């Protein structure tokens, strides 16, 4: 298991699309370092004979009929948009 020292909070925050102040980054580095040191204990568990659990109760192949049904109107879907126009969400320009 990688050690706590591998964590670069500023880099990971960028991956997660969260800007951090320097103060926050320093505090998180220390606090998450403590958490990563704590989870080191999982190294002691013998997992050589176990499959990973994805879900606590085994259920497989959950299907339903592929039929159209009532759903949000465009107006409802846009009702919470911070910016909208012409039945669309408005965002900063992404292509030149």
């Amino acid at each position, binding site marked *: *298991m*990688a050690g706590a020292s*591998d*964590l670069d*909070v500023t880099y*990971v*925050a*960028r*991956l*997660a*699309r*969260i*800007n*951090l102040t320097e103060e*926050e980054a320093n*505090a*998180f580095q220390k*606090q*998450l370092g*403590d*958490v*990563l040191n*704590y*989870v080191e*204990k*999982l190294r002691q*568990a013998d*997992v050589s004979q*176990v*499959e*990973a*659990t*994805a*879900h*606590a*109760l085994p*259920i497989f192949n*959950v299907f*339903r009929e592929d039929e159209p049904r009532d759903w*949000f109107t465009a107006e*409802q*879907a846009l*009702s*919470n*948009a*911070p*910016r909208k126009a012409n039945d669309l*969400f408005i*965002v*900063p*320009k*992404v292509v030149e």
Partner: protein
Amino acid sequence: MTEKDLPALSIADLQSLLRRREVSAREVIDALRARIEAVDGQIGAYLSLDFEAAAREAEKANVDLPLGGVPLAIKDTINVMGQPCTCGSKILHGYRSTYDATVIQKLRAAGAIPFGKTNLDEFAMGSSTENSAMKLTRNPWDLSRVPGGSSGGSAAAVAADAAFAALGSDTGGSIRQPAALSGVVGFKPTYGRVSRFGLVAFASSLDQIGPLTKTVRDSALIMNAIAGHDPQDSTALNEPVPDYAAKVGDDLRGVRLGLPKEYMIEGIDPQVKAAIDAAVKQMNSLGAEIVGVSLPNTDYAVAVYYILATAEASANLARFDGVRYGYRAEDPRDMLDLYGRTREQGFGPEVKRRIILGTYVLSSGYYDAYYLRAQKVRELIRQDFAKAFEKVDALISPTSPVPAFKLGERTANPLQMYLADIFTIAANLAGICGISVPCGFAEVDRHRLPIGLQLLGKPLDEARILQIAHAYEQSTDWHKVRPPIASPK
């Protein structure tokens, strides 16, 4: 009984009055409103209230339905059409739900009236409700202490008689732990027993909605309404739903209860330990057989949880990006700037910490060491429970190792806060059901602080732990003791 006394009633007692037409649904709403206006300034349980809509629904309530005319408080992670759903976060500023969660649809069909949304730790991440970006919620038993969390608003509202009952959500103990610290009943169903559609997702393989109530019977009544399959949630189990209230009332003869030896740890408050020991004796005297069991992988549970829950949260909370709903940073230069500043300004510190940790444990090069390994240890924990349940019907432990702690006491150290969930977390990892019931009080600084007893049951064996919890509850007076704020001198 005057109108002033109505809010102190259990759902079951309220229903007898409603059905005998001794009180109207409208009078109930008005009495509850007066009660909330009188006490919630001190408690801070509610984030939003809609009494106009509630009064309209009360006027046409059919009190003969299973929950007809019963007002219910709803944790503010569950979508109720037309109402805000803040999740205790600035990032959902201004958001109003455009639909009802499945549990809300089911409660409405049963006649219940969702009238208000309760405070919580931001995105249900926390154990004290102090991570809410909205307001502080105080413990009705001692206003200088936390109500527990993350469903702290729901627990405090029920404890202070400012709600007949409430819904919460439980990802690592977020129903049971605040129920214990606030002196009410809190019930976490088996994973998949209740639909999560419309519950804002924190950790999708762990989240489950359940009731916080004044009595065990009330939890059974709410479970009758909300349990069951839902085509909108592929993890909602397609299994028959028993009548949970029907088994409540059976005695404890022939019931086998397990005491996990790993749960008798150092660090349990002596008054909590004494209360649990007394409760075990009490259940023994009611006919239950007490058996020692072992859950050898218990010590790994908190570590597994904080890897898996943060990993799932980092993916689930990616949707809060300032594009489709909620808060958006001013004047973004481009999309990266829009995402980065929206999430910087919209999320509080605990949510940021968990997203960063979750992103890290899923990132290339670390996935196997953290996420995959944690999933495997999760399986060991699940097997521990499966083996224990071959010998016993349910397991007993404290819900929390300590009674309610002081506001601000644990906020500086996230890891210490995480350890508050040590007895509740494993049930979510294993997907089993659990309940917390009041089992006594600790005397601290001349305040009485509630203590909770946790019972854990086999998957889909909700009826059994409700039965056991009810038999214990009815043999004690703990659930009848009200906090000072509920019975002013």
